[in-house]
């Protein structure tokens, strides 16, 4: 059995689903895609990885939050662990209601 410290080692890669909505989908041209990402990274690093794939996303940088496994995370130094099959979503400013 591997302990969780091993699973979250810095160089592990996870394959996650990234979902785009509203302006995010407009800018990337896709609603979802499968992306290989480091298994452990800060939320701002996670965002920069997505910007690297879709440079047009940069216009959202000041306005966006992410959701990891359907929970909000702000763009900051907070570390998140990603596992294969996890859902990451780019959440532009909400306008429901």
């Amino acid at each position, binding site marked *: 059995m591997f302990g969780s410290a091993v699973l979250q080692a810095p160089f592990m890669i996870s394959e996650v689903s990234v*979902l785009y*909505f*509203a*302006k995010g989908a407009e800018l990337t041209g896709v609603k979802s895609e499968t992306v290989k990402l480091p298994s452990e990274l800060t939320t701002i690093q996670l965002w920069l990885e997505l910007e690297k794939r879709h440079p047009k996303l940069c216009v*959202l940088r000041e*306005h966006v939050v992410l*959701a990891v496994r*359907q929970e*909000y995370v702000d763009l900051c130094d907070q570390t998140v662990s990603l596992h294969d099959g996890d859902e990451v*979503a780019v*959440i*532009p*400013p*909400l*306008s*429901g*209601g």
Partner: protein
Amino acid sequence: MSEDVDSPRDLIKLTHEKLSSDDVSTSVTCPSCGAISMFIGTTRDSFEGKTVIQLEYEAYIPMAESEMKKICTSIRAKWPTVRHICIQHRLGVVPVTEASVMVGISSPHRVDSLEAVRFCIDTLKATVPIWKKGGL
């Protein structure tokens, strides 16, 4: 009325169908409550000076549902006498004057449901991942 029927209900719906205020008020009606407060959000004919014919909504559906459930949990912590909560949001095209969102909340006395409805719609707009098409 059986215990099940009258135990507190959190009724959450995302739908492409037209919303009905009768459905919402009926779904939260209960014998021990004297008050039902409701909020209905409709498509307006103008936004920031521009004419609007219809809006189109999309949602991150599973997360929207879980955020709506969190709102129900918060309401029950803040207003423990609240009985039933119904939150419905329409998706897809919503023409002018039709409802995009309906909230209905019942409570024995009116203050609780009135305050809870306001909290519910304010929080929904701030936390539930739903978007109008064409926004930022």
